[in-house]
């Protein structure tokens, strides 16, 4: 279980982007969070990942705190290196690189792990796919995705749907922040962020 407790966050303007926001995420939940531009979706994910500190409040992880995978905003990479180098670098930070597994994930997204092109030459959609792969390749138990299908073509979006369904069947906790409907995924819970607080839609 993940408990987001009374999160408050403001930026330079002084007004609160997140104002006393609380929510509970159960293990194995598949959740969609929506909201207008600048409503605080990415800020919430950053706080939940530990990339940003809230002004007050806390995020409590019952377990798997160190097993988070995420795409936050535009995924960034070591631009002058290849997919293989980037994924291996990230994988090796905590585990030993499982080349076969990563190769198979890349194949599912029509990516060539051994392509010699450097990351800066890839399109937005392809970068998004690589970003998604890095978020799931280490068998992470909690997955946070911010606009994960941005720039992906229809085929890529379908591959993404099928991967999410597979991850959900493996009891992974998945939170997706997006404007898009993502028709191919059946969400258990849907939330909307409005005026700094969160509302339950489903």
């Amino acid at each position: 279980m993940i408990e987001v407790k009374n999160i408050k966050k403001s930026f330079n303007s002084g007004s609160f982007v997140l104002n006393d926001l609380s929510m509970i995420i159960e293990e194995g939940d598949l959740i969609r969070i929506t909201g207008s531009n600048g409503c605080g979706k990415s800020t919430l994910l950053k706080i939940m990942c530990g990339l940003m500190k809230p002004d007050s409040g806390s995020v409590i992880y019952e377990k798997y705190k160190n097993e988070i995978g995420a795409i936050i905003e535009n995924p960034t990479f070591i631009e002058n290196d290849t997919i293989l180098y980037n994924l291996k670098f990230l994988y090796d930070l905590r585990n030993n690189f499982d080349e076969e597994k990563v190769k198979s994930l890349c194949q599912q997204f029509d990516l060539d792990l051994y392509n010699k092109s450097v990351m800066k030459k890839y399109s937005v959609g392809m970068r998004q796919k690589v970003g998604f792969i890095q978020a799931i390749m280490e068998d992470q138990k909690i997955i946070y995705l911010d606009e994960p299908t941005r720039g992906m073509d229809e085929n890529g979006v379908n591959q993404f749907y099928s991967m999410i369904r597979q991850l959900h069947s493996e009891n992974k906790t998945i939170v997706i922040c997006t404007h898009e409907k993502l028709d191919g995924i059946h969400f258990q819970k849907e939330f909307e962020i409005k005026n700094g607080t969160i509302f339950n839609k489903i």
Partner: protein
Amino acid sequence: MERYLTKYKYLILTTLLRVYLMYILVDENTYLVSVYDIDSVFFHFVIGLGITLMDILYILQSCLYMHQIKNQMIIRLSQKEYYMYSIKNILVCYFIITIIQGSLQMFFYHHISYHFMLYSFILMISSIIIFRFDNEHIHNYLVLLSLIINSLFKLF
């Protein structure tokens, strides 16, 4: 090949400049440059500045490489571990520079100068400070100091 050239361009350039500088100094049959030879002094001063600048760029570029995937690293590690990892990266760059300079000095002059040890130490500290504390002013002073010290040592 292209990506290695991009990644190590400053190290390659600085190594070539080091070899050139040491070669011409050895060719003059003395390690110390004559202070009365103004042209020669100015020339070595400029090359010394160039080497220092590229050493700094090499280390900063190396930090920048990792900075690009800072978020993914912090999610996997933690803020503290990320900075420790970065400092380790800076130390690796520092040792590579030291080994190249040391090897070249041994090859050309058969000894390693103390001034280079001091210079590279300041270079390392300045790089760590900019990365750890993100304090531009302290960094600028240290870079300036390392430039002056290196250039003075190159002169005398």
